[in-house]
């Protein structure tokens, strides 16, 4: 029982040392103030003790310079911490380009993961070491939260839209994966294991033994795209009743309200499930809603398929 005892969790991602340094820094700063106050209170309480209850304290009412000093100095220190912490925060929320993407769905009480190469797993997540990984996830029912302490990342899974976390594992091993947003009876059972593998092992695992039945995620999406007859309207050359999806992902789209939005995962997801919400300018409101016809995993595969429809040259260029 004592074997696993430690004061700090394992540092297993590039973000972990950053967060830990910040943690130690804030501990030092706040610790200093804590010690000052505790020492002063203790010292004064003993030194100025009056056992009789009859004496009167010194007639001191206050000091404006002191007040200003102990308002402004902590304020500037606080701003310092704020800036430092915000820099770390933006490292946490802003994923680098060219991440390995994994789709995930939280559902009471399990996590399902889908890899682009077609692997699917439950409550287990295999990732390669030394590569930035981005997990895009949503929830099928209530709020959940994907939390991997060893990587120092966490985000709520909100039904109806996508959240994402990213991390670059630095250490091969097995780590906890928790649901950190209360989700009902077996909330504490909604846990899993992250396996950080050597890149070669990961590649072997990802393309391994028949688990990729149904092809890669994009291939499954393509099959679904045909099956749901999306293909009849969304013609590649843009002559159909719906806009062409070629090169759509990541582009700027003008809606019929005049608003311009970026076609990211959440936009694509919303357009599939609530097709009337954001219609592209120049097109009729004719697309049916696919809510109830396609599950979250299907949506993820469709999105991955749409992502794969980048202009061929585009993709190569961005990869270099």
């Amino acid at each position, binding site marked *: 029982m004592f074997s696993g005892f430690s004061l700090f969790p394992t540092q297993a991602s590039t973000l972990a040392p950053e967060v830990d340094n910040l943690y130690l820094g804030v501990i030092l700063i706040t610790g200093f103030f804590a010690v000052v106050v505790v020492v002063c209170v203790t010292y004064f309480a003993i030194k100025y003790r009056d056992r009789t209850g009859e004496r009167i304290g010194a007639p001191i009412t206050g000091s404006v310079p002191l007040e200003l000093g102990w308002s402004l100095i902590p304020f500037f220190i606080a701003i310092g911490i704020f800036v430092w912490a915000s820099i770390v925060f933006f490292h946490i929320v*802003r994923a680098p380009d060219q991440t390995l*993407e994994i789709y995930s769905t939280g559902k009471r009480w399990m996590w399902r993961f889908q890899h682009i190469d077609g692997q699917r797993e439950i409550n287990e997540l295999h990732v390669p070491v030394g590569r930035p990984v981005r997990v895009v996830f949503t929830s099928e029912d209530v709020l959940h939260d994907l939390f991997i302490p060893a990587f120092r990342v966490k985000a709520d899974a909100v039904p109806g839209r996508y959240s994402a976390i990213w991390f670059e594992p630095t250490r091969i091993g097995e780590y906890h994966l928790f649901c950190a947003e209360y989700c009902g009876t077996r909330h504490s059972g909604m846990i899993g294991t992250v396996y950080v593998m050597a890149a070669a092992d990961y590649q072997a695992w990802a393309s391994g033994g028949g688990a990729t039945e149904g092809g890669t995620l994009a291939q499954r999406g393509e099959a679904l795209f045909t099956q749901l007859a999306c293909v009849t309207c969304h013609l590649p050359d843009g002559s159909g009743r719906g806009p062409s999806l070629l090169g759509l992902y990541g582009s700027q789209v003008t809606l019929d309200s005049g608003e311009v939005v970026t076609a990211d995962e959440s936009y694509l997801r919303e357009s599939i499930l609530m097709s009337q919400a954001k219609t592209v300018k120049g097109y009729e409101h004719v697309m049916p809603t696919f809510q109830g016809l396609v599950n979250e995993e299907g949506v993820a595969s469709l999105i991955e398929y749409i992502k794969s429809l980048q202009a061929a040259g585009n993709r190569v260029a961005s990869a270099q």
Partner: protein
Amino acid sequence: MAGHISPKSTYLTIFGALMACTILTVVAAFINLGNLNFPVALTIAIFKATLVVLFFMHIKYGSSLTKLIVGTAFFFLGIMLTLTLSDYLSRGWFTAARGSTSAASIPSITGPLTTGARPLEQTPQNNPPK
């Protein structure tokens, strides 16, 4: 008791103004002002509410404390609206970095398996229970 007594004519004038504003707001709603329809409707409503507060509710003749209290209500209402909308309106600004690659297209798997200066340790730590 020192309450302000307004003449009847004041109340009738205010009532007339409120009626006029009601008609104005309906008429304005039927004119296509583009995105301005909502702000116009809101402005008229705020104007009407101000009239009621000032004259029907006698704030015009009230103490500065009462005025302060009314101001406080709308100040905090404003805080609630603006700070919440600061979230909703800026959500779209943040777009995540792009690019997804499959495992098969990992550019180089022969390169050094390290990140930064940290050498990889092969010993798994913090193993969860099996």
